């Protein structure tokens, strides 16, 4: 067995990991209300972007949801929370930051993982009128609605393609 043959399995593992990082399709089993409620005002965020404990905190404070009243009836709230918790991200992977100061709601844009992924984005881009909020994934990730976050799909505000 030569070196190429030995490396091939390793390479496919690498490819699988690389693919996973930009594939944030929604896991199966989302209650219909996940799109129609959460997805009405913002992208129906991939559950993996916050840890289970943080999702529980978000869902416990829907009457004060980042400045909006996003209250749901109890069965709908429970169904969405169960889906988010079941598919939540691993705290080890997300790193600190998602859980904000006590009394503040967690933000999926504040995790160490999110910040690392976006550290090259200039401050002006975040403030751009087409973006408005770092939680507006689809402003730059043009296929975010279908869960695809490939680098080649990124279009920065003003129409510039993303380049390393």
């Amino acid at each position, binding site marked *: 067995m030569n070196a190429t043959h030995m490396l091939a399995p390793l390479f496919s593992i690498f490819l699988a990991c690389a693919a996973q990082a930009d594939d944030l399709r929604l896991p*199966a089993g989302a209650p*219909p209300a996940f799109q129609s409620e959460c997805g009405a*005002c*913002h*992208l129906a965020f991939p559950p993996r972007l916050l840890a289970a404990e943080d999702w529980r905190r978000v869902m416990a404070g829907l009457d004060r949801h*980042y*400045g*909006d*009243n*996003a209250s749901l009836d109890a069965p709908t709230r429970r169904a969405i929370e169960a889906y988010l918790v079941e598919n939540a991200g691993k705290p080890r992977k997300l790193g600190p930051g998602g859980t904000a100061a006590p009394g503040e709601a967690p933000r999926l844009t504040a995790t160490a993982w999110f910040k690392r992924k976006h550290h090259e984005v200039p401050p002006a881009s975040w403030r751009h009128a*087409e*973006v*408005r*909020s770092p*939680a*507006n994934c*689809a*402003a730059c990730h043009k296929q975010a609605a279908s869960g695809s976050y490939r680098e080649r799909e990124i279009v920065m505000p003003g129409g510039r393609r993303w380049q390393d």
Partner: protein
Amino acid sequence: MKALIPVLIGLFAVTAQAATPNEILAGYRAEAAKSNPRYQSSAELGAQLYTHPFGVSAKMPSCSSCHSDDPARGGSHVVTGKAIQPLAPAANAERFSDLAKVEKWFRRNCGEVLGRECSAAEKADFISFVMRGR
């Protein structure tokens, strides 16, 4: 998943109350007429309601803050930036076709923008306006 599809369609049929914008408008008109028999819906009053800066919420003072000045055009959520499809049924056939959905959004957005529920008369005026256009 395939087995789920008939179940999902069934659920949809039960929850969605298919209606036309005119039917929904007529319902609110009738409700408004109960307290004021001389009530007539007014697209003009609806237009004022749509652009009036209530200022209850600093970020979204009026309906037009998110829905743009023209209901036939889309808008975008002032906080999240998410694109909002046009409100006008002429531009977006999904609008005002499901009473439960219409009620949900009036309840939520009137609370947000006006700081209270909207009356049946206001809802009828509003729908008259988005159906007529600017």
